[in-house]
């Protein structure tokens, strides 16, 4: 069991700052989609903010991550610029990927955000390669692969955990278990009651933690990062959580039993972490609000930047297919 140490205040506040950015960014994304000014498939992460905020607060700029379609929170937590992220969501030329990737493929290597995949499970094999590169380069940088509970049932998960264990790769597999794979309950699709137990099959540590609890997450992550940086190999963290806005924007949650979402609200990391900080004397309500207001202003500026950014030139179709531009 990882220790239960409360992180230093500056780390707690860094985690809060990330959570605040994520929370308000998700809120604004759903609003703007509703106005029709943003047309995209959107996989809200509302309810899962504590996970990347806590993990990325423990990463260096030179550490790398890979994530999935429900990954905007991971990207922002790792440091992807908010304005470029919004421009990409809007499909504009100033986006991280010149509008060619979109919400499911946001990439920003400068902040270590190496790949976002729309394919369940596929963040993991590539993370093995990113981590292998760290090892070959002789650095102690680590790679985090984010994925969901449904990915625990696909071959890529099992192959990657095995490969990473055999090669002792500095990679941390982070499963956000939000209880649903698309519309189907975790219990109906997974033969074991915890994804973390599968680590046993690969001889690596498997941490099952409350993914809405920053302190639990922090300690498990610290242990996994220390192990990876020391060259001892990978770890699996299962962060149990909940998503409050279903699989994709517009989801009516009809597949969820009545009352499930309401019950999950009691464990919502957003109000709970705010309360943790104020009750513990780490910050006042006014401190938190001042952080929130700063992020809201950043997000507003990003929305304006994104919607004012030009659409890509059609010639972009022929660029980046290969290194050499194609002749149409």
């Amino acid at each position: 069991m990882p220790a239960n140490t409360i992180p230093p205040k500056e780390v707690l506040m860094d985690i809060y700052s990330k959570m605040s950015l994520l929370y308000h960014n998700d809120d604004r994304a759903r609003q703007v989609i509703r106005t029709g000014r943003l047309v995209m498939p959107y996989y809200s992460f509302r309810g899962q903010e504590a996970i990347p905020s806590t993990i990325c607060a423990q990463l260096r700029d030179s550490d790398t991550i890979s994530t999935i379609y429900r990954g905007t929170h991971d990207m922002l937590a790792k440091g992807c610029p908010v304005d470029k992220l919004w421009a990409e969501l809007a499909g504009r030329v100033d986006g991280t990927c010149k509008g060619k990737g979109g919400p499911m493929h946001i990439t920003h290597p400068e902040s270590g955000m190496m790949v976002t995949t729309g394919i369940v499970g596929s963040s993991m094999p590539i993370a093995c390669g990113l981590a292998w590169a760290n090892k070959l380069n002789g650095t102690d940088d680590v790679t985090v692969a984010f994925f969901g509970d449904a990915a625990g049932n696909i071959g890529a998960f099992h192959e990657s955990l095995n490969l990473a264990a055999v090669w002792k790769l500095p990679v941390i597999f982070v499963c956000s278990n939000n209880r649903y794979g698309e519309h189907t309950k975790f219990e109906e699709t997974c033969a074991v009651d915890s994804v973390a137990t599968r680590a046993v099959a690969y001889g690596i540590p498997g941490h099952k933690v409350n993914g809405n609890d920053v302190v639990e997450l922090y300690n498990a992550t610290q242990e996994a990062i220390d192990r990876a940086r020391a060259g001892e190999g990978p770890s699996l963290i299962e962060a149990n959580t909940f998503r409050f806005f279903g699989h994709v924007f517009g989801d009516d949650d009809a597949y969820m039993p009545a009352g499930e979402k309401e019950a999950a609200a009691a464990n919502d990391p957003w109000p709970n972490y705010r309360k943790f900080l104020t009750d513990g004397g780490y910050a006042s309500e006014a401190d938190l609000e001042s952080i929130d207001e700063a992020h809201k202003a950043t997000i507003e500026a990003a929305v304006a930047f994104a919607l004012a950014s030009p659409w890509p030139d059609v010639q972009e179709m022929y660029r980046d297919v290969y290194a050499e531009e194609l002749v149409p």
Partner: protein
Amino acid sequence: MSDKINMVQAINWALDDAMAEDKKVLVLGEDVADHTGGGVVGITKGLSGKYGKERVVATPISETAFTGAAIGAAMMGFKPVVEIMLMNFMTVCSDMIVNHAAKLRFMSGGQTSVPMVIRTMTGPGMGSGGQHSDFMEVWYTHTAGLKVVIPSTPDDAYGLMRSAIDDPDPVIFVENMPILWNPGDAPTRGSRIPIGKAKVIREGKDVSIIGYGRVIQNACAHAAKLAEQGIDAEVIDLRSVQPWDVETVLASVEKTGAAIVVHEAVKKFGPGAEIASTIHENLHKRLRAPVVRIGAKYAAVPFSNVLETASVPSMDEIEAAVRGLVGVPA
């Protein structure tokens, strides 16, 4: 007299020379390390002993994981040469190849790239049946972002492998299994064959035979026999299927006015359809007759030798097509 080597040795030389020149070049795949023999046919023999097990890595039989690992390492500036033992095994990691290796450059707006090589063997003629013999190049030529080369001689194999490793994008390097041990001229070490450049392996004026791999070498040998009967065929080895050398092909057909496209991939929806169509679109008025396509039959590659032989293009089929186009009956 020039030295003769086979394609196994030529590819081994190319990997050896590339690894010696650039520490970023890595080799990984099932059985590729020396203690397992250097790959199932020995193409990577000697490399792990020479360059170490950090750079030449025998992997678990986990194509998705190790192809993904090669992609990740390539994104970080390494140049992995990953062996997917047989082309049919590429289907189990098609997600990594098609959705990731091929598309990451484009989807990231050019911020990331995947300079990797996938080596894979295949080819009917070995009695390997339906899951170890397919030519599936069209699956990958149809996916923007990949390049596909299929050499037919040791020196082409050497030069194309060097170019594939140099290339900034993912290249699928197909090793035609039944001809891996055929002797050919030894390559000049350090030489490159540009990807996308065909080779006219026999000049002629009556008809153009266009293809690649084992079948184009056989067609070339057969063309020499037809020449004795006064039929002068030009034979073009494309060597690269994507990109393919449109210019050389069109110049040839402009000259001959007739074309046959031949490959060991299935004819239906095969690469020959793209090539024939391009010829028609550009040289319709110059053609004496429609382009003839010859490919494998629309079936799984059969085991029984009689059926396997019947499934792939025969010299009789090619000769009949040639005679039909030049108007010389048998």
